[in-house]
């Protein structure tokens, strides 16, 4: 069992009731006047309530990752505005953490040093770093692997290291880009549970990009369905789950109904994407 330290290094809630606000955001790659330009995203408008768990589903290549890059400040929008906590996003904002699909653990560092990496860059005192790392190790079930190197861990464990490395920085907005995409179905369910536990503990706003309708339906407060490229939101669904949900809800009748509704929206778009691919547009 996890013993919680007295002052849990959780995060305070966002100062704004609206954590993220996108207004008419579009992203075009390449010269806008060139016929070869790619209109990847939008226009997209979206508001995320502070502390909300929001998932985005959509066909491949619909601009989901572009959306995440804009929120992470890695890639500016071509038009429109993106705000986090009421401030326009220019460069990587403070208090935003990102977990990618690919394994981003540092192979040359131990699990412990991986998790402490960002904290050391912030110049926190050693005992504070130690306290937060210990907490994250325990929270993510990595205590016994403190001194292990990523190569000695399974894919799921490595992704936990990356999540822990993000978590210790106490982000108010956590962006996850198909973080469990490379994992098997059972591991995904368990990782989903851990994600929910982390979300409840930190009060952070979470934006999860996923291919999996099940994952979106199980984890989220709200699910946004995106169209084929250029990606736009064609519907958002309130799941209505209680905050203390876990993976056992996949057996609930409402879960099946929810995924059916998501799929109904998405099916047409996926077919559009496949036809586009057949014409060589993708």
């Amino acid at each position: 069992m996890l013993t919680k330290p007295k002052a849990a290094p959780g995060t305070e809630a966002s100062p704004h009731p609206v954590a993220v606000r996108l207004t008419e955001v579009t992203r075009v790659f390449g010269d806008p006047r060139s016929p070869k330009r790619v209109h990847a995203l939008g226009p997209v408008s979206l508001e995320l309530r502070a502390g909300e768990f929001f998932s985005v589903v959509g066909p491949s290549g619909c601009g989901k990752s572009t959306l995440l890059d804009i929120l992470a400040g890695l890639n500016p929008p071509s038009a429109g505005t993106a705000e986090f906590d009421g401030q326009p996003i220019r460069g990587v904002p403070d208090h935003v953490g990102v977990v990618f699909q690919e394994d981003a653990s540092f192979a040359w560092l131990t699990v412990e040093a991986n998790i402490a990496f960002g904290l050391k860059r912030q110049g926190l005192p050693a005992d504070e770093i130690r306290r937060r790392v210990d907490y994250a190790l325990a929270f993510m079930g990595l205590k016994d692997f403190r001194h292990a190197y990523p190569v000695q861990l399974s894919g799921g464990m490595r992704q936990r290291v990356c999540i822990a490395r993000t978590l210790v920085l106490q982000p108010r907005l956590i962006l996850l880009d198909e973080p469990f995409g490379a994992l098997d179905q059972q591991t995904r369910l368990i990782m989903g549970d851990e994600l929910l536990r982390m979300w409840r503990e930190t009060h952070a706003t979470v934006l999860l990009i996923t291919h999996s309708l099940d994952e979106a339906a199980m984890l989220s407060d709200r699910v946004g369905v995106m169209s084929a490229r250029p990606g736009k939101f064609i519907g958002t669904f309130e799941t209505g789950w209680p905050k203390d949900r876990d993976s056992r809800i996949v057996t609930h009748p409402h879960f099946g109904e929810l995924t059916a509704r998501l799929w109904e929206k998405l099916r047409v778009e996926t077919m559009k994407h496949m036809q586009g691919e057949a014409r060589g547009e993708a």
Partner: protein
Amino acid sequence: MTYSKIATPAVVVGLVLLLELSCRLGWIAPTVLVPPSVALVSLIEILVSGQFNSAIAVTVSNVVVATVLAVIGGFLLGVVIHANDFLRRGVEPFLASYYAVPTFIFYPVFIVLLGVGNASIIAIAVLLSIVAMITATLNGLDRVPAVLGKTSRVLKLSPIQAAFLVKLPAAAPYLFTGARLSVAYAFIGVIASEFLLSGNGLGYAIAYAYNMFENRTMYGLMLLIILLVTVTNMALSAVDRRLQARIRR
């Protein structure tokens, strides 16, 4: 495990014994090859008498200097070429076919430029080994996953921090492989150049013994070089394996 561990020593011991036997039974004339045991005794005499100590020192220091220059120069050139796509497209065909050119044909050029001596020897050795390091650097930097670049930005590292704290360690196993190759090429470059354009060093000592019909000394020196290279290579391989183990996923 133990099976594969004894395979190489078994082959080595077998070949040495076969050679010993061939020499002792007169299948191989003593003017051609001395028995390995005689070469070993000769080597011990060489080391005890110290008559070739200066030759050993010269060769080893030339190899070290050439390796250091090739590794540092090759790494820096690799970084520059990696950063400039135009340059890279231009030089990549040359890098790929570089080892098709026998570098030693340029030895007269170096004698003219640098004279007969250590400078020319080191220059040829560097020329021979630097490209292995350039190629390894390009390969290493190519293999740093893009997600690590994104991660560096999310963790708000400056470009210099990202280079030293993320890119360099991520590429390190590949860079080390390049350094290891550079050492091997530096040995070849130095010793072969000593045959051609030197009055000192182990290469020169072997050529001298050969001209004087001193077969015992010649084979003793050859054995010395073989052992030197083998020990160096085994030490570097051990480090290499440890680094490679971290990237094998």
